[in-house]
């Protein structure tokens, strides 16, 4: 995938001095969907890493635990996500070294990530990710998002990328306070299935992660059944006069 330098100079934001604008994502992860439920947070993401339109990597883990109380899910450029994990590992190590009985909770991690992302954005060199941060500490559930330009917010249910268009409408309609684990998983699977049908970069291999006061569990990779049995799918152009 070569990009000529002409495209850089054509950039809308370059001045006469030719300030380089940002970069391009190469290996990208698609949507992450997450919601609050009775005992904590449930987060789901597929395991695909796309290289342009090629589904290059199919076993990428895009959800990782952070410290004792948080889960991070990332979409966008995978190398930038790995860099972020490196920064977070440093923070957690530092936190542990204090050995003072305190530990970084999801609110603190979210705040830290917001600063990192926003400061990179100010330098026109963003980390090309949308991050979902979820966790539980001292009974308080937290679910938030940080985007590549530093936008951050908290919500009861979130999605990144294409999930905003396909999954959020489902969540807005069917999410309610105090979902059970089973209800939460079923709802997330409904969202992931829709993304599988309608998002080009989706891959049929998922992990669902949960975080509660007790800790983090990330499921084994698994695939979802999809439905193709509509009669209309078998021969859509039968009886049609033209080509469609």
């Amino acid at each position, binding site marked *: *995938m070569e990009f000529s330098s002409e*495209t850089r100079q*054509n*950039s*809308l*934001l370059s001045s006469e001095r030719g300030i380089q*604008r940002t*970069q*391009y*994502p190469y290996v990208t992860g698609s949507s992450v969907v997450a919601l609050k439920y009775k005992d904590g947070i449930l987060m789901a993401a597929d395991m695909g890493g*796309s290289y*342009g*339109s*090629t*589904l*290059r990597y*199919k076993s990428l883990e895009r959800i990782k*635990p952070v410290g*004792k109380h948080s889960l991070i899910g990332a979409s966008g450029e995978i190398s930038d996500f790995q860099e972020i994990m490196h920064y977070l590992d440093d923070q957690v190590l530092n936190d542990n070294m204090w050995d003072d009985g305190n530990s970084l909770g999801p609110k603190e991690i979210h705040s830290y990530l917001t600063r990192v992302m926003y400061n990179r954005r100010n330098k026109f060199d963003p980390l090309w990710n*949308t991050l979902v941060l979820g966790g539980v500490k001292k009974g308080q559930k937290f679910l938030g*998002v940080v*985007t590549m*330009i530093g*936008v951050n917010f908290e919500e009861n249910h979130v999605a*990144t*990328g*294409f999930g*905003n*268009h396909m999954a959020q409408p489902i969540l807005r309609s069917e999410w309610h306070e105090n979902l059970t684990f089973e209800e939460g*998983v*079923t709802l997330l*699977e409904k969202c992931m299935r829709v993304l599988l*049908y309608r*998002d*080009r970069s989706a891959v*049929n*291999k998922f992990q*669902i992660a949960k975080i*509660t006061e*007790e*800790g*983090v*569990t*990330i*499921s*084994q*990779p698994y*695939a*979802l*059944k*999809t439905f*193709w049995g509509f009669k*209309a*799918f*078998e*021969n*859509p*152009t039968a009886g049609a006069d033209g*080509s*469609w």
Partner: protein
Amino acid sequence: MESHKDCEINAPHSMGTTIIGVTYNGGVVLGADSRTSTGVYVANRASDKITQLTDNVYLCRSGSAADSQTVSDYVRYFLHQHTIQLGQPATVKVAANLVRLLSYSNKNMLQTGMIIGGWDKYEGGKIFGVPLGGTLLELPFTIGVANSISSLVPTFFASLCGSVTCNEKLVNSLQVHLLAVIICSGSTYLYGFFDQAWKEGMTQEEAEQLVVKAVSLAIARDGASGGVVRTVTINSEGVTRKYYPEDKLPRWHEELEPQNSLLDMLSSSSPEPMVS
């Protein structure tokens, strides 16, 4: 949430696609996936890309959905008149040449690659490829001769638009640049496979299995291909359409057998927490 996605809603409907045409001992097999995408969105997950031109000649369409549909409509119309004048079924060669005529004379405006396949009594089963530009190639087998430009374009849109509004002219100029650089979409994954797997003089069974396997492999790796596999087999006896939904296709590397839900896989109580 990202504003760059707005630019893709008006992206042209494109069948970044996997299409295949294969000759065998007695006829031809045409195969295709069923995904039509608008940028990143799958506009139709069960489209039919194998279109009838006459009773004995069919066409696989790829690239711009609008362009390929229009070309095939014109060719069907011309072939119909030709059949009446000739007094017998049109040959595959004539059909292919009509497609070429339209593709070549309108090469600056069209973005579609097609595979023509059929059977006639003079030459038997024949496959012709008409890629972008209007070249006509008679081949024992051919794979997706053209593609959607949208394979890398969304990435470009994303990087250029960012938090700024989309500049139409800039985007269009980029599209032209990319078109020259990118070749086929789903089909690139299959060149090596066909080099190894295609044999002269296969039976109908073998040819169909080969096509289904190939399209299924491309679907596994090409984001622009997906859905079900459709095949059309044409020989002296007539035309047979087949339809292969996901459960009838094999699993490839790193793919898992589909489940109804994670809940089926877990034990009745919640799993033990794992802190890694």
